[in-house]
């Protein structure tokens, strides 16, 4: 019950942050990505502000034996850099560059009462379900999980894989 309240509060803070930083206005985001045009640095300050908090706060939080209201931390276990990660990031990047929305802002923007975020969210859910469907049917596992570490110009610590 306490956890549910925390989730709600956290979501409200996040949504407030997205609104205040104007990240729900896709023109602001596209302006940041448009480095050769008239550049909009806003997103840099948003991401910079957010990461400044997490880089410091997470250091302390992750030293706790367990979260305040939970038994353990649910952290991602994958550490290797595989094709799935890279391809996924590329596809996400293309979509983001076309739409100017990423998941968080698009959901928050639903309160604006305009059609853009509605269409985006519907398509985003369709895309997500399509990946789920496609990945279970294609013989994609081995290819996707293969490490690209050897292709990178820097050392990657060995990690454990998870399908």
């Amino acid at each position, binding site marked *: 019950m306490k*956890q*549910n309240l925390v*989730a*709600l509060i*956290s*979501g409200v*803070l*996040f*949504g*407030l*942050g997205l*609104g205040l930083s104007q990240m729900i*206005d896709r*023109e*602001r985001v*596209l302006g940041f990505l448009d480095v*050769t*045009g008239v*550049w909009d640095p*806003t997103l840099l*300050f948003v991401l910079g*502000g*957010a*990461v*400044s908090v*997490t*880089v410091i*706060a997470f250091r302390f939080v*992750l030293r706790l034996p367990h979260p*305040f209201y939970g038994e353990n931390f649910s*952290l991602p276990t*994958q*550490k290797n*850099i595989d094709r799935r*990660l*890279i391809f*996924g990031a*590329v*596809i*996400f*990047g293309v*979509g*983001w560059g076309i739409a*100017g*929305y*990423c*998941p968080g802002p698009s*959901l*928050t923007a639903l*309160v*604006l009462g*305009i059609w853009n975020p509605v*269409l*985006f969210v519907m*398509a*985003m*859910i369709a895309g*997500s379900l*399509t990946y789920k469907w496609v*990945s279970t049917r294609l013989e994609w596992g081995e290819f996707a999980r293969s490490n690209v570490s050897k292709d990178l110009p820097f050392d990657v610590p060995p990690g454990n894989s998870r399908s």
Partner: protein
Amino acid sequence: MMQITEFNWVSGLLGGLLIGTSATVLLAFNGHIAGISGILNSALSSGFSEVWRWLFLAGLLAGGGLYESVVGPLPATPVSTIALRAGYAYAPWAMLVGGFLVGFGTRMGNGCTSGHGVCGLGRLSLRSLVAVVTFLATAIVTVFVTRHILFW
């Protein structure tokens, strides 16, 4: 010489601090990563068995609504004076194509700007750093192509 548009670094920074705080709260109390694509995908997969995800997503909307109706209009709230609401112009194909790719790609790559960007970088994850650099670079190239080559 690079042209820079009018912007408000204070509102950007404050918004970012709020986002970082939100992620810290969710991690410190519930032990979960505030990655929107992950939360949404898991919510869709598991339905209402775990309610917290739906409450978080509802909070996203509530927070946005709170800003638009209460916080934003306050005279003390720092915002840019320029109205960039050109971004509100109806762009159905960009939304459908872009949205599909974002949904597909974030599921494949296990994260988005909040998951890999805010939280992953906060955890000093190399995997997330690679993801962030990759999707940022790709998005920048995409905008260059769509705006300066294809003139969309």
